């Protein structure tokens, strides 16, 4: 994964509350077999309005989305994070996120920033004309008008995002520990280790 240090640029002043993952990416997009290309389906129902903000020339390719309370609620589909990434969004700022969405976002290198409603309101206003900067190292969001808002982030997530570490890579580095567990388990619970190798079914393996 690409390291995330700062995310800087235009921020889409979206602001709507309770945007569920069905709005972020409708269910019929779930049949894809790739993570790519989902940007086309992102916010599809909102984008039926020709004046929607996502298709405005001014905000095309913006790396930041400023959203309302409880962003990403509803189904756990990871496609929501992929759809945002495919739109070019690298960070979302909101007063709160659903847990599953922020987990999925993190796993895909999207930074989720929680700020109080007043600060989000301020950003919604500024973003209409000005860029926004998120600095992960110092955990701050700043604007050209000297706004400076601090945010909290889980230290482990921060570390992974800064270093561009993905969870799979991190766990693969624990190979020795996993192998030690497997050795132990093969004595204590030997039947688990055999899995599908146990059966000669004629089902092609």
């Amino acid at each position, binding site marked *: 994964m690409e390291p995330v240090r700062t995310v800087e640029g235009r921020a889409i002043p979206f602001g709507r509350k309770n945007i569920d993952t069905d709005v972020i990416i409708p269910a019929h997009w779930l049949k894809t077999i790739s*993570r790519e290309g989902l940007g086309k389906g992102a916010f599809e129902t909102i984008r039926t309005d020709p004046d929607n903000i996502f298709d405005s020339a001014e905000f095309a390719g913006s790396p930041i989305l400023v959203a309302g309370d409880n962003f990403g609620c509803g189904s756990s589909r*990871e496609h929501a994070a992929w759809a945002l990434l495919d739109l070019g969004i690298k960070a979302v700022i909101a007063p709160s996120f659903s847990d599953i969405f922020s987990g*999925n976002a993190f796993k895909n290198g999207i930074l989720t920033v929680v700020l109080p409603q007043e600060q989000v309101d301020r950003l919604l206003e500024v973003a209409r004309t000005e860029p926004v900067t998120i600095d992960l190292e110092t955990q701050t969001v700043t604007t050209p008008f000297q706004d400076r808002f601090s945010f909290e982030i889980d230290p*482990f997530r921060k570390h992974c995002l800064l270093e561009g570490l993905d969870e799979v890579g991190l766990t693969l580095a624990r190979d020795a520990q996993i192998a030690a567990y497997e050795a132990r388990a093969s004595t204590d619970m030997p039947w688990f280790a055999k899995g599908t190798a146990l059966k000669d079914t004629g089902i092609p393996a």
Partner: protein
Amino acid sequence: MASKPTTLYEKIWNAHVVERRDDGTCLIYIDRHLVHEVTSPQAFEALRMSGRTVRRPELTLAVPDHNLPTTARLDAAGHRLPIADKESAQQLAALEQNAPQFGIRYIGATDREQGIVHVVGPEQGFSLPGATIVCGDSHTACHGGVGALAFGIGTSEVEHVLATQTLLLKQSKAMEVKVTGALGPGVTAKDLILHIIGVIGTAGGTGHVIEFRGPAFEAMSIESRLTVCNMAIEGGARAGLIAPDETTISYIKGRPYAPKGADWDKAVEWWRTLRTDAGATFDKSVTIDAATVEPTVTWGTSPEDTAPIGGTVPAPESFADPSKQEAARASLAYMGLEPGQKLSEVEVQNVFIGSCTNSRIEDLRAAAAVLKGRTKAANVKWAIVVPGSGLVKAQAEAEGLDKVFIAAGLEWREPGCSACLGMNPDKVPAGERCASTSNRNFVGRQGPGSRTHLVSPAMAAAAAVTGRLTDVRELVG
């Protein structure tokens, strides 16, 4: 030994800790991984892109279910029929290619063993007591019915398990749902779990793993226990668990992937220790008297919207919580129901008997017992029975159940998820009602605009006969 009394959940958890971090997060070893076509393509894609391999391919089993049409899969000459929906076909083809490419055993669409992942796992003896089991599907909790710690995961986690055979997890809290007494005649495991969700609410188990305890569960078959645990997720829990006992052990014995020989003896010895110790404490506890449970149906668009079949549609104002009142109003508008309406007068146009909740042999027997010698009502336009697996289908046919369904005017289909979710061709038309044995009555779940009433297989069969939600005890008794 003076070790601290522990819950069943903690025992299974502790047996699978690879590593414990300072913040309490654990790297947990995963014994069994089930993979289907919908949530796996991007995981395999990511492995391929990063040049990673599957750590222990023999611990994963792949089977298509969600998208597969439940109509005939072979033509008269034995050739595979094409799948009309292009995207479904593409997902199915991806699984068929990915599994062998990564060395994973694959049960194909036309194999006898094919079925819904959560039916196939236990049936094949792949899901075992005391195992950690995951699948990219929220109803993985189902496998708790054999005493496994089983839960749904997202696609990134599917990739993580494939590559490392582990997951990074924080331990959940332990909750007990204790059911005292016995279920009355005509009242099934499905009625009980619907009732439980009605009592605890869809957030009742949030952050917890629920252990279902008490004589009602001990008396249940494994099929019924799978039904109960399947819906633990609808009560907000990460997983549901029922302690393995002699019923579990005899269910597992001799199944294709069950341990054999000395391994079997050793496994059984350990499984007999898998129970919550006397004196162990739960973070949350709920007690329910089985004798108070009636055949239960849902009236709204959340699985907690339950009522006994003899009851009425509630008035939104009857709920204390204003947000629940709001939700109930929206539910009733969507469902086209009026407060005070008798549930037994609600007409249904569709009946679906199937899904990982209720498509095992016992479920089909229960439905057939009601349908035998009867026919579906004229107002029921579409009624299908979809066995959970090819083996369930074969067993049902050997018992002549298919003939009972067909004689009653129901369709007898090939195994798959079918009308449980509007992803394959089996859908409930907009504005129409369905008495469904599945697990979710969400808005649009069975197709855009569909109205779902969750019921047991016997109650679904009764609804097919009368054309309305019906107390099955009026028909058989």
